[in-house]
């Protein structure tokens, strides 16, 4: 076991990790941050997307030891300390961008990554960016709508499908 230290949602955190410990496992089981979900564990579904040094990655396909010294942002760091949702989270609620909610942490983290680099994406760009995030409930329409709304675009003409 090695000791690994990283800055998670702005706070320095450390814990023990084996070589094989995945970042997703370290966040969930060692740090207790269970908002990062593990859907497939094969880097297909995107429920485990977090940001490492500002870039969205799949935490199930990165070793915890690779994140030594890194800055990691997870879904737990998205809302304000008093629980107020950020604009993207609020848009998901307002536009019914989730049903069961399992994929939502990954959707939010992937969408945040998109909006950081492309503040006013087209619908096609949103859909393309979510290629690695799978939702089995919503059919994606309201997720896409929520992301477009969070980017400040008028979504009133997009039908609720």
């Amino acid at each position, binding site marked *: 076991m090695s000791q690994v230290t990283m800055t998670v949602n702005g706070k320095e955190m450390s814990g023990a990790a084996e*070589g094989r410990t995945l970042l997703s496992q370290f966040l969930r089981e060692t740090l207790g941050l269970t908002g990062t979900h593990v859907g497939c564990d094969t880097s297909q579904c995107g429920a485990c997307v977090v940001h490492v040094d500002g870039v969205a990655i799949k935490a199930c396909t990165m070793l915890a030891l690779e994140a030594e010294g890194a800055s990691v942002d997870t879904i737990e760091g998205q809302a304000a300390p008093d629980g107020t949702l950020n604009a993207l989270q609020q848009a998901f609620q307002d536009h019914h961008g989730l049903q069961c909610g399992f994929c939502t942490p990954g959707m939010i983290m992937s969408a945040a990554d998109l909006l950081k680099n492309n503040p006013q994406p087209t619908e096609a760009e949103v859909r393309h960016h979510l*290629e690695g995030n799978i939702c089995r409930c919503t059919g994606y329409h309201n997720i896409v709508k929520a992301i477009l709304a969070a980017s400040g675009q008028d979504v009133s003409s997009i039908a609720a499908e």
Partner: protein
Amino acid sequence: MYNFDFEKPSTIADAVSALGTEDAQALAGGQTLLPTMKQRLASPSKLVSLNGIAEMQGICTGDDGALCIGGATTHADVAAGAGAYPGLAGLAAGIGDPAVRARGTIGGSLANNDPSACYPAGALASGATLVTNAREIAADDYFQGMFTTALDEGEILTEVRFPVPEASNYQKFEQPASRFALVGVFVAKFADGVRVAVTGASEEGVFRWTEAETALSGNFSAEAIADMAPGSDGMISDLHGTAAYRAHLVGVLTRRAVTAAG
């Protein structure tokens, strides 16, 4: 996955020495290796991460105009930084999904030489030079069949040098579930001729479609290869497509790539 020792050296020399241990394995972005290890199809005793080696990161232009890409450069960085070679930047931008592109590296892809990976087609069609800690290998000598390359045990792909063609394009027909290339074709037009490399189709891995190269070198247009397709002998046949279907796709995608390259 089974446990292993982990090292993350900061120089190529230290990485080479760390890889000297029996059953040690280099870890690039891990987007293929880690899933493979989870399935216990690989169980190295030690992983040596190449992600902390600054000299293997980034893109520059060599004295001869070639684009030099560090082996540990991610697909996302190639997509964003290889503007001097739009065909290659386009290829990198289409690999996997955004989160996979943020971790996966060019060196990892080329060292693995998956028969459906995109980069082998780009490197072979470009006539790239693959630089290792020990030597330089021409792309024509590097790819030696599915998951097989000229790399020796413990040899690290440190850099890839791409001559930049006058025109180029990569077209892939995605297998809809995995989004790997069912077939992918990279076309590169140089002053002294056209090179066409095909991934995803052959049981021998990436290959050059020389018949199309000859036709396109005389007349760089889709019409020059209008009814042409490689033979289906030796093409991959599986539940996603028959050998004949893949052979047909090679012709279609090559024509699309030529048209898109202009």
